[in-house]
């Protein structure tokens, strides 16, 4: 697990698990189809990623499929960051 994945995983655990929640969340855990992240608060997750990584994720790429695991989210962030035009 790299730093990016760890940061996303920490955020997901903090933001979506209740205190007495003993569901295990790892890199491959299905987040949306697994009922951990609801589609309404996906926006919060997107905003967190954008702020933290100084990127803007186009809505077309912020799909439930791309957000369905910590690993796929990290891949999305890397893809978007790689396209960033240096200023």
């Amino acid at each position, binding site marked *: 697990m790299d730093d990016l994945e760890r940061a996303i995983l920490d955020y997901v655990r903090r933001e979506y698990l*209740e205190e007495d929640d*003993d*569901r295990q969340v790892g890199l491959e855990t299905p987040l949306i189809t*697994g*009922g951990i992240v*609801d589609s*309404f*608060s996906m*926006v*919060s997750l997107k*905003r967190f990623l954008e702020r933290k990584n100084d990127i803007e994720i186009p809505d077309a790429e912020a799909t439930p499929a791309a957000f369905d695991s910590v690993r796929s989210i990290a891949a999305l962030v890397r893809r978007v960051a790689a396209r960033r035009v240096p200023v």
Partner: protein
Amino acid sequence: MAYPEPLKERFRRGLEEIRAAGLYKQERILHGPQDVRVEVEFPAGELPRPVINLCANNYLGLSSHPRVLAAARAGLEARGYGMSSVRFICGTQDLHRRLEERLTGFLGTEDTLLFPSCMDANAGVFEALFGEQDVLIADRLVHASIVDGMRLAKAQTDTYKHSDMGHLEEKLAEHLDKRARVVVTDGVFSMDGDLAKLDEIVALAEKYDALVFVDDSHATGFIGARGRGTHEAKGVLGRVDLLTTTLGKALGGASGGCVSGRSELVETCRQRARPYLFSNSVPPVIVAAALEVLDLIEESTARRDRLEENTRLWRRLLVEAGFDVKPGESPIVPIMLYNARLAQDFARDLFEEGVFVVGFFFPVVPKGQARIRTQVSAGHERAHLERALEAFVAVGRRHGVLGLGKREIVERFGA
């Protein structure tokens, strides 16, 4: 062909998958009026058997009350059977307006608009009132009809952990840049039976300049000292901006719902809410009976008081018998079993023992949170609840769950 074989096959397969996953819903058929004792045919084709009903939303026992039936009959004679029109064309009678005024008085709001159901009220209200610059911030356990209503709206959405005021405050602060913030919650949560912390929610909303929306379907008529709802119980009457509720539960249980609240908001719904504009008017029979229900409730608190006593008794009996009961003060009393299969087997065995309840599991409740939801009524006699407890204890022994907490149940049965 309009219905080609591959399409048919797709739906067949879909249904098989539902069955294979153990999620296929079968109707239980009642032979008689809704009551605390009913004759139920289940599975379909079996002889109906008498059971004690612990799964109706008939909280005040008014679904078949003689005065309600008489008022319905009188309404039928005086105002006819159906309206054959939506409200704004020729579907509004004097009775509809009178019921809206009575609900406004009862709920302590400024104005009220009837909808064909509370599902429709929730489906219409957000889309009618809020747009892209606004944000709806919902408790994560709100009812499915609210989720659908939020999906239909163009407003931005966010959620907070169930009843977690710290998390709600973070979200309110995060969305200070929006034109309007709306906190969205159930008054009494339908699967857990706990009350929203409306006093704290209203205080936070005032601090962050937000509106408060409450769906009080499982509260109107019996929560609060005079049964006005969760806002009465939490001391914030008049400080909730938008309230939806149903006539389909405690208030006679037929059908119909409403949006009630600040007058400009309700008036805007009258102009814009699509289920109000494009679906038929609530029939006069129901409107007339609902007026009688409000008379009954406002004349005396005896029924809601009785319900409160019954609820306390039922909770105490279950806890003393060693069940893992979700704490709360509403007549929704969930018995936690955590495992979906166990919850289903438990409900089936209770039915064999003459008690009618339903097991709930994912996706209706979160994974690993399966339960039997029981609902107490003012119509239950002490003897009904004691008899129901005997059945619960017998079935609880059979499955070996008495005295076990979450950890032990999950260890034994899996999550």
